[in-house]
């Protein structure tokens, strides 16, 4: 008897809990469009809570409003690769129509993406690519062709120092495929266009702003006639810029590279970094959502297509290319907020 009454009481408690959570849930589910007519797109950054990806999401939500689709933006709060896999699995279970991932690792993400496609989900990568063969992803939304980024980096500095002088590159990690590909393009451009620019060495900053600043200080001390520094990651660039400014050699040593407008604004305004290179993050998110919606509703053959406000975007067999990189300078930097 005692047994019975205990279970009954517990059952009552359970029902109460269910009633509370259930009510809370349904009340709020109703304000999300859940009918199957609305396309549901999952947009996953490498990690959430950083300005660059938040800007991508702003563009994505703009596209979502235009197209009348629902874009869920979610990702790992820390750089933990397995979290991305879990979210992909969850989105498949929640019957998303499109899943677009900026993978932290090209191989680790491959298996869940492949399974997602098997379930009939449209799979995209953006910002960074997954292994195209093992992931079977449909398209990679590429922010800027590697080649053009490398060329722009060289041209920005080459023009500023009149095509001659000693320079160094500060990179993030020795094994990053992106950074190594950019540097290959830079070497080619230097050899063709600026034979009088000497590249002294390539320094590895371990994706650490403090270390990049230290490396730049050492180089500045060792070479009084140094003319330019490339910091080709968003950590290396502000580190190098700070070192040059602190040494009082702004303008004499030109710093440039890849960086975020909000971080680099002060250095652009004081002349340490007259110009630097990146792409428009909002446009990248905007384009990714447009491509996802287009693929979910039909075909996207190779060629040039218009996606909302972005005209004549190049689509190849495996990539969509946002376009040439953006060069930020004193005139345009205030238009960007990321």
């Amino acid at each position, binding site marked *: 008897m*005692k*047994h019975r009454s*205990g*279970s009954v009481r*517990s059952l009552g*408690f*359970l029902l109460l*809990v*269910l009633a*509370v*959570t*259930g009510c*809370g*849930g349904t*009340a*709020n*589910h109703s304000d*999300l469009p859940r009918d199957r007519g609305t396309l549901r797109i999952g947009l996953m950054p490498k990690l959430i809570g950083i300005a660059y990806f938040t800007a991508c999401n702003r563009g994505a939500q703009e596209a979502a409003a235009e197209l009348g689709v629902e874009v869920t933006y*979610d990702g*790992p*709060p820390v750089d*933990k*690769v*397995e*979290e991305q*896999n*879990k979210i992909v*699995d*969850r989105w*498949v*279970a*929640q019957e998303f129509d499109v899943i677009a991932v900026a993978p932290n*690792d*090209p*191989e*680790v993400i*491959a*298996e869940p993406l492949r*399974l997602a496609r098997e379930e009939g989900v449209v799979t995209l990568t953006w910002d960074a690519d997954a292994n195209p063969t*093992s992931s079977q992803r449909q398209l990679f939304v590429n922010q800027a062709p590697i080649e053009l980024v490398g060329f722009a980096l060289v041209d920005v500095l080459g023009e500023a120092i009149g095509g001659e002088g000693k320079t160094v590159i500060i990179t993030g*990690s020795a*094994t990053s495929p992106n950074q190594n590909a950019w540097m290959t393009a830079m070497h080619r451009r230097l050899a063709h266009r600026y034979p009088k620019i000497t590249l002294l060495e390539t320094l590895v900053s371990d994706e650490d702003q403090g270390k990049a600043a230290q490396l730049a200080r050492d180089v500045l001390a060792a070479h009084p006639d140094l003319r330019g520094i490339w910091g080709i990651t968003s950590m290396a660039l502000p580190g190098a810029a700070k070192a040059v400014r602190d040494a009082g050699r702004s303008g004499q040593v030109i710093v440039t590279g890849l960086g975020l407008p909000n971080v680099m604004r002060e250095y652009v305004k004081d002349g340490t970094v007259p110009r630097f290179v990146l792409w428009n993050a909002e446009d990248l998110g905007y384009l990714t959502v447009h491509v996802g919606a287009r693929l979910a509703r039909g075909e996207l053959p190779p060629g040039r297509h218009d996606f909302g406000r972005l005209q004549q975007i190049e689509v190849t067999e495996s990539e969509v290319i946002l376009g040439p990189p953006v060069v930020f300078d004193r005139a345009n930097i205030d238009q960007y907020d990321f």
Partner: protein
Amino acid sequence: MAQVRTITPPRWRQWSAALAPWLMLLLALALLNAEEVKPRAVMRFWPAWAETGTLAVALTAIMLTGGIDLSIGSIMALAGMTLGLLWRDAHWPIAAAAVAAVLVGGLAGAINGALVVLGLPSLVVTLATMAFYAGLALAISGGERISGLPADFCELGRERIAGVPTQVCLLGAALMAGWIVVHHTRFGRYLFAIGDNRTAATFAAVPVRRLELALYLASGLVAGLVAVFYTARTGAAIPTAGQGRELEAITCVVLGGTLVTGGFGGIGRTALGIVVLAHLEIALQFADQLKITLPGSDSPWQLTGQTRLIILGMLLIAVAIWNQRARGTRA
């Protein structure tokens, strides 16, 4: 060990303690049902939880003696990186690298065991080696992931045997072995004896030291084995792998009703704990769009990664206290 006071607690407390995991399982299933999650989708999250569960089986034996092993997650990372580095840099065949990974896990466990046998508290020892092994995994790999492992090796972590993921098979085997060892051998009876009263067990000629060494060694071997399956599943050796796994495994054991102070519990309880925690966590993941507006608050309260951790942490504490009280044992 502190003085132990035993009183018979009210029956309802015992009942509620036994019922609590089942209620949580019901709650989890109800949540999954409310979110319209298909069973097939839920099963996709099983392999990861089966890995944690396998760790929890070895941990149960340790916790029965009143000990703990906090380093299992870090051992996973160390073993996984050993596998990756031997394969990529030393050009070992992947199978040999996998065996070496398990052995490295065993070695790490043996070091834990040796330090515990020296008389240091297991909490202190494994807290230290948790940091040490994790740091070692980062150091030997330079913090870089090693991906592109051979496809047929990856199958090991992705295959199904008669529709059951390999990790779940591994968990099944571990539960079976654990159940036999803990509940049907003299070794198993000794575990309970040590957990009840370590000093008394020593005087009763229980080979406490040898037993403890064996326990931590086994825990390390299991962590190494789990690391192999984990690495195969993700297709990459990841230096930060296993972070937080030790807490999940401990929660599984405690949720099942094994006492943190040792002497009471078992493998069957841990099996229940694994099933409950796994489905609760899976259900909470899907409840990401569940918003609850508390009265008097404007902003809705929403489940995120962090709140999930808070919920699981509170759960662990609540259940641990409740179980202890239900047994009438207070350390």
